[in-house]
């Protein structure tokens, strides 16, 4: 039986008067790639920020490696975060540092490694994402796909136990998408990491995910293997996977007190 690495238990979260999650529970297995999918605005990125304790739930708890991350002191939380890597949607490379400096930064901050060892590791990490020749470039000189790969190299620079990918395929050309898909699979398997992939790119996500979780209307509507999700008869899951405009998931943002809002409340309840 696969061991659980992250456990989300009865989490409720609301922001600006809007309920994002209503009693959400899910498990993320250790050493596997878990894809968290769902329509835009459903709170996928919020889930990553809750796991990283950048946001706190209104109620419920989130255990990462059996530690409730929201009860930790600032110092302990920063220690836990050193075991996490995150690929932000924008890449979030430090604009005043070169590519090599960006990747070296976490190692310089958290290890006692010599300058030569760090340089060697930076070179290895860049090689693993196919950008060894870009070490001296500045982030402003990189294309979107290259920036995402550099950010990936930085996210794995401390060999974390957990890597979280926030919409890694958004805005990428087909070649970059393919490269990222194989990189995520390869990195997860070679370093025995746990990966959480947040995306609404159905094909790419299902092609590499060992475990899939679909969120909609503030709750988990489906969870299981990619095959099980593809075979699901749930109308919401089918609508999302097939990209159908008509179905139980509304296309229009609800009007206050309007029919759509009442419909959504019905879905969420």
């Amino acid at each position, binding site marked *: 039986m696969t061991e659980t690495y992250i456990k989300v238990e009865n989490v409720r979260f609301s922001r600006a008067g809007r309920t994002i999650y209503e009693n959400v529970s899910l498990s993320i297995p250790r050493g596997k790639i878990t894809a968290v999918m769902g329509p835009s605005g459903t709170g996928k990125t919020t889930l990553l920020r809750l796991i990283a304790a950048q946001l706190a739930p209104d109620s419920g708890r989130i255990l990462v490696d059996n530690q409730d991350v929201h009860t930790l002191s600032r110092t302990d939380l920063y220690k836990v*975060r050193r075991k996490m890597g995150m690929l932000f949607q924008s890449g979030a490379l430090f604009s005043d540092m070169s590519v090599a400096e960006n990747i070296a930064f976490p190692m310089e901050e958290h290890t006692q490694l010599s300058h030569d060892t760090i340089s060697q590791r930076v070179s290895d990490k860049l090689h693993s994402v196919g950008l060894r020749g870009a070490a001296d470039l500045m982030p402003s000189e990189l294309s979107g796909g290259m920036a995402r790969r550099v950010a990936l190299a930085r996210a794995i620079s401390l060999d974390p136990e957990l890597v979280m990918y926030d919409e890694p395929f958004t805005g990428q050309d087909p070649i970059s998408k393919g490269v990222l898909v194989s990189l995520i699979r390869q990195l997860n398997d070679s370093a025995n990491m746990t990966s959480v992939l947040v995306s609404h790119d159905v094909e790419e996500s299902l092609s590499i995910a060992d475990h899939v979780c679909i969120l909609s209307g503030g709750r988990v509507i489906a969870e299981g293997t990619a095959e099980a999700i593809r075979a699901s008869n749930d109308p919401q899951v089918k609508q999302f996977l097939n990209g159908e405009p008509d179905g139980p998931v509304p296309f229009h943002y609800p009007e206050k007190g309007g029919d759509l809002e009442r419909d959504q409340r019905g879905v969420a309840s």
Partner: protein
Amino acid sequence: MKPIVALGTSFLDWLEAVGRAGIFLVQSIFRVPVRLNEAINLLIKQLYSVGVLSLVIIVVSGAFIGMVLALQGYSILAKFGSEEAVGQLLALALLRELGPVVTALLFAGRAGSSLTAEIGLMKATEQLSSFEMMGVDPLRRVIAPRFIAGVICLPLLSIIFSATGIMGGLVVSVSWLGVHDGAFWSLMQQSVYFDTDIMNGFIKAVCFSVVVTWIAVYQGYECVPTSEGIGKATTRTVVLGSLAILALDFVLTAAMFGDF
């Protein structure tokens, strides 16, 4: 009842914001650097960005304000036959008031707005979140060096402003208007006191530096991470910074020179 409720809510919101800003200031000051050499490197970079890059506007403005003061002062003093006292007027006006106040206003416009926009953009591009995710405190890595650099630079820029202002006034009054240079310097020397004039002006500049830099880094850190949010935060830095300088100047002047 509604207006009273709204007023109370606004006051409570304001009080909460002031409290948050106060905690932010304390946290920014007392975050201990992990590695001293890294902290020094970060500080030097910010000293250059905040201080050295502000030099041109400070020197040019100082020189012109000194020249205008000399012209205006000379035209009035000449009516009483005291045109030699123009040096005294220049020095006292610049060291006590114009040096610290105008430098702080220019600093809020040049360096303060730049600090807010830079930090706001780092927030919008998730760089601050990225630091947090790596277990690196953004207050220590991003905010503290910028805050300390601002507090160091503004008083030094204020001294440079006053010095160039006096030199600008010297050129106009001695070389152009024909004031005797010996009288210019000796009257200045007689009437300017280190403790009351130079030190009080310097203390004002230190107070302004804390307030302006605090407002600038706080506005950047707390801004809404959108282009509109950064724009508004930058404007708030300049407006709130300028108002705070002028209000604080009155309080400090009353405390320092109000004993008639």
